[in-house]
């Protein structure tokens, strides 16, 4: 069972690992369980606490811990790793069918040769996407979440170490196609990039606000199809900014290449920041 999230118990597999991914049930020396400051408020035998319904043997224990605390610790460890290796990690999220994988294969194809690129592919099943990415020339590893609906920081930590990336790499993490659950799970990325294609509804930012709030960049994909669909780009951008006033927006078509330069520019800028270590989040943990 995954101790980070348990989502799809025993179903998670990382390509290249023969065993099912039993997440550190015992013996592993992740020592983050300590120092959480649980403190015991033992009111003896009495029912001193307001909640206590008067049962003599019960007592109250104050926990004050984030439910996702464990995931956040793994995410901090990933973030530290990325920072130490001058790597830019981006968490790509969207609904199924928004064109994430095509955008990635095109991105890999047009990225400057001197920039090492790697991809972590998250899907419930199959290694089809990782195969597609590898064909385009980047290192890729597939994580199958089994029944799970999102990637978590623990899976990503393992996949990153498997990839053995060079300093200054750009790492794209393609999350499971889902606009709900991945919003809550920090993977240690520098930014979440939400991709919305014009064949979807323009009001998605309002319908799935958590994700659009968590993202730093929104990509409006498949703009070559705009003449054929009823998609109001301006309204979509307005909705996204209502949810997240600071969100950056890039319109592009991975198929025709229109707008790709802006996306590459955004990556380049963030990669420079990652390399110089200007942005070192998670250092204080």
């Amino acid at each position, binding site marked *: 069972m995954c101790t980070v999230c348990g989502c799809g*118990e025993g179903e998670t597999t990382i390509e290249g690992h023969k065993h099912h991914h039993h997440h550190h049930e015992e013996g592993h020396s992740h020592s983050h369980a300590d120092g*959480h400051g649980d403190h015991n408020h033992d009111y003896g035998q009495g029912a001193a606490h307001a*909640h206590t319904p008067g049962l003599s043997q019960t007592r109250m224990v*104050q926990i004050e811990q984030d*439910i996702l605390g464990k995931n956040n610790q793994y995410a901090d460890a990933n973030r530290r790793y990325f920072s130490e290796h001058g790597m830019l990690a981006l968490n790509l999220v969207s609904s199924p069918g928004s064109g994430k994988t095509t955008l990635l294969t095109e991105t890999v194809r047009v990225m400057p040769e001197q920039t090492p690129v790697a991809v972590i592919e998250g899907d419930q099943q199959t290694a089809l996407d990782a195969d597609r990415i590898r064909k385009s020339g980047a290192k890729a590893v597939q994580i199958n979440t089994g029944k*799970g609906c999102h990637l978590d920081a623990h899976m990503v930590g393992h996949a990153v170490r498997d990839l053995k990336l060079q300093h200054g790499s750009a790492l794209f993490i393609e999350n499971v196609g889902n606009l*709900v659950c991945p919003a809550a799970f920090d993977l240690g990325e520098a930014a979440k990039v939400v991709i919305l294609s014009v064949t979807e509804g323009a009001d998605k930012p309002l319908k799935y606000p958590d994700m659009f709030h968590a993202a730093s960049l929104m990509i409006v994909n498949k703009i070559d199809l705009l003449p054929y669909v009823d998609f109001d780009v301006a309204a979509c951008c307005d909705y996204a900014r209502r*949810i997240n*006033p600071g969100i950056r927006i890039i319109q592009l078509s991975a198929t025709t290449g229109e707008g790709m330069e802006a996306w590459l520019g955004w990556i380049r800028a963030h990669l420079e920041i990652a390399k110089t270590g200007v942005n070192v989040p998670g250092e204080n943990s």
Partner: protein
Amino acid sequence: MHEISLCESLLKVIEDSASKQNFSQVKTVWLELGRFSCVEPDAMRFSFDVVMKGTLVDGAKLELLELPARVWCQICLKDVEIQQRYDACPCCGDYRLQISGGEEMRIKELEVM
């Protein structure tokens, strides 16, 4: 769908705490959930019962405390409460709001024996 994951995570925290705090059964669990915490209370209750079966939390009561969503309005220069992420400031109608509370998912305390 990820409420199952959250419950498994919750169970792990409780198990860690049980060995440190020396308890073997949990009677009540208090969770603080912000209004914007991506948790559906009904799904959480359902998952809680399923995940806790056969553990030291089996049969425990789950108490959910909802925390309001608070945002800082850059126009009014004050904290206001909203209901949805897409809401405008109730005082001035502007959307330039910065969330200051409401994303919590915290285990508050346990009643144990």
